[in-house]
């Protein structure tokens, strides 16, 4: 994310979460946090505990966030925010939390008596770990009438006009396949995709693990009772090289599409 992207991100984030932006500028902003946002991103639980127990007027913070110090002419005393900075990571976490579950209806603008088909869409993140990492996103959608599954579901959604309430004169067909069952079906599909994938990475990690173990064994070849450092290093190697796979959901929801 370049400074400009960070800036746009912040702007949209605060707009969508109803935090008024008091000063707008290409390279910094002053934003008034809401109580909810203050609690989420400012990490000051004791203050909020105190406010609530003492029953005093809460005062959510104002933040001055500088997104591009190199271009800023003015002398602004604010927090530098950039990709990798802790504050931005907190905002990312908040975004994940606030954009996890949706139920949306498509507005086609075609007017009278449209019918909309129910879909379950889920964005999966699959991570391969050993001494390094690789991550993949799988965006899957399943038609809750037919059971048909499509990939790159998120891409399909992006071009559509989706709203949280059902449009007038429109009929949303109730689902036949229960979302819980559909979700199980998608989970199995993701697992199949993982199994079909190339796992030479895991074999390579194990080979490297073995080689490091041999070096370690050589080093202690003469000791009858192995010292604690031997066990420590052996454990460290295990943690470093053991191949693991993790499946997370980024987000997902019910989509009624034309």
């Amino acid at each position, binding site marked *: *994310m*370049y400074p400009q992207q960070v800036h746009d*991100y912040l702007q*949209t*984030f605060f707009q*969508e*979460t109803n935090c008024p932006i008091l000063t707008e500028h290409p390279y910094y902003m002053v934003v008034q946090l809401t109580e909810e946002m203050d609690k989420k991103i400012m990490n000051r639980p004791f203050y909020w505990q105190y406010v609530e127990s003492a029953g005093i007027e809460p005062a959510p913070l104002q933040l001055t966030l500088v997104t591009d110090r*190199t271009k800023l002419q003015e002398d602004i005393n604010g927090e*530098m925010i950039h*990709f*990798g*900075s802790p504050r931005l*990571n907190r905002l*990312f976490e908040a*975004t*994940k939390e*606030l*954009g*996890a*579950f*949706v*139920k949306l209806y498509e507005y086609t603008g075609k007017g009278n008596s449209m019918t909309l088909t129910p879909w379950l869409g889920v*964005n999966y993140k699959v991570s391969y770990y050993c*001494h*390094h*990492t*690789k991550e*993949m*996103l799988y*965006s899957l959608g399943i038609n809750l009438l037919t059971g048909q599954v499509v990939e790159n579901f*998120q891409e399909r959604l992006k071009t559509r006009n989706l*709203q*949280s309430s059902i449009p007038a004169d429109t009929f949303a067909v109730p689902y036949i396949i229960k*979302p819980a069952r559909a*979700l199980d079906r998608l*989970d199995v599909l993701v697992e199949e995709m993982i199994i079909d994938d190339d*796992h030479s990475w895991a074999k390579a990690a194990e080979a490297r693990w073995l080689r490091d173990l041999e*070096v370690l064994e*050589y*080093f*202690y070849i*003469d*000791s009858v009772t192995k*010292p*604690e*450092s*031997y066990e*420590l*290093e052996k454990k460290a190697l295990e943690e*470093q090289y053991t191949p*693991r*796979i*993790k*499946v*997370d*959901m*980024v*987000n*997902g*929801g019910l989509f009624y599409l034309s």
Partner: protein
Amino acid sequence: MYIERSSDWKAGFLKRLEENGPWDNWTLYNMSYDMAEHNLITDFTGLQAPKYLPHFTPLAHQLEAAETVIERMNGKAILADEVGLGKTIEAGLVLKEYMIRGLVKKALILAPASLINQWVEELNNKFFIPAIAYRKKYGIDQSEIIVMSMDTAKKSPHRELIYEQDYDMIIIDEAHKLKNHKTKVYEFVQSLKKKFCLLLTATPIQNDVFELFYLISLLKPGHLGNFEAFQTSFSASKRTVEHEEYLKELVNQVMVRNRRQDTGVEWTNRKVQNIQIQFTKEEQEAYDLLTGLKDISSVFSGAFSMITLQKEICSSKEAACMTLSHMLSKCTSEEEIAYAEAVMEKLMNLEVNSKAEKVYEIISQADDKVIIFTEYRASQTYLQWYLGTKGITSVPFNGKFSKSKRDWMKQLFQEKAQVLIATESGAEGINLQFCHHVINYDLPWNPMKLEQRIGRVHRLGQEHDVHIYNLAIEDTIEQHILGLLYEKIDVFEKVVGELDDILTSYKESI
């Protein structure tokens, strides 16, 4: 293969289905997906960091080093590039990478006091990492990324404050200062939690292989076994290394070392000459007389004080006289005093300094800017006076100078004076690529000090071949020092890897 699944999302989704809400906002849903896509580490290999550093392009060997540290060494490594190849850049890349991946939030950088500002500037300007220099009055939690001097860090109350911080990453510059495990600073670093840790030094071995052992034991305790196991496996004699291949293999698991010639950057050559100098008859007599002191007086019988005096007289009578007159005050018997005074008189009467004359000869032939390194302040002053009498302008330089004075001396040297005369402590942190001649007037015990000296001149940006002159006086302690230097270089090369020329090759000079 075992697949870990988290069930949180599923539970949350089913609950909302049942209760029909609350549902989230479509824009935030999209942002969340975009962010996940943006943060995705799509490849096992490769760095994310360069994408976020549009303003500067690291060199290939620097990117490769950062990649190796992260992918092969799991973020615990010794960065041991030769001087002048940009270890700071490599460390910055690694730190940035882990910050991007969200694995490091808090980091501590320990550096010599003279390099703190350089670190803060590089991290902020090159890497957009908001590092600040530690100031006692602002406290330690002023920033998540703190740069502090090692001398401050090891002392109370700073040391306790650091222990409380729970840093994700520790970076230690000039890490060869940790070679001695009995020092306070070693103990301090040992008790520091090191989840990710980088030790930066061009000279992981200075004198013997145990220094490397202690350095690696800080980084990954047990990697080289305990001391006893190490000593047994790698021989009791300190300077012969058995099982070199295995040791090298272990070392390579935790150490990245780029050599100039591997960098893909055009490097100029080093032309090294060891110059043997013959004392004049009078000088040799004074040297022998001085050496005789150890049989006459107990004040001079300690090996250390005698060696000091011998080294000094090889440098200049001025250097030797200062120590001698100091020691003279400790003599009690008449005989000792008489002998020592005779030595002193002999020294005072010396009219010729053969080494200084050789220096004049080298400078005249070079007809160019020259740096002279000496170990003694007295010799520094003497040389400045002596060269002055020959019409050669020079400026002194040492580590005790304030930053502004150092900058001024550097500028004087660049623009006005022909010669810069530096003492050892001046060698750290100045870059003098505009100069191509280095005279090692006195030899240190440690070859890496020579390497550090040469590195001031032979670094990125040097456009000419660099001439290095190592001076040693025949039939004196300096010849012994030269021999030891060769042995130490040999150990380094067997365990760590090849070195660029510091001395002329062994065969040539023996």
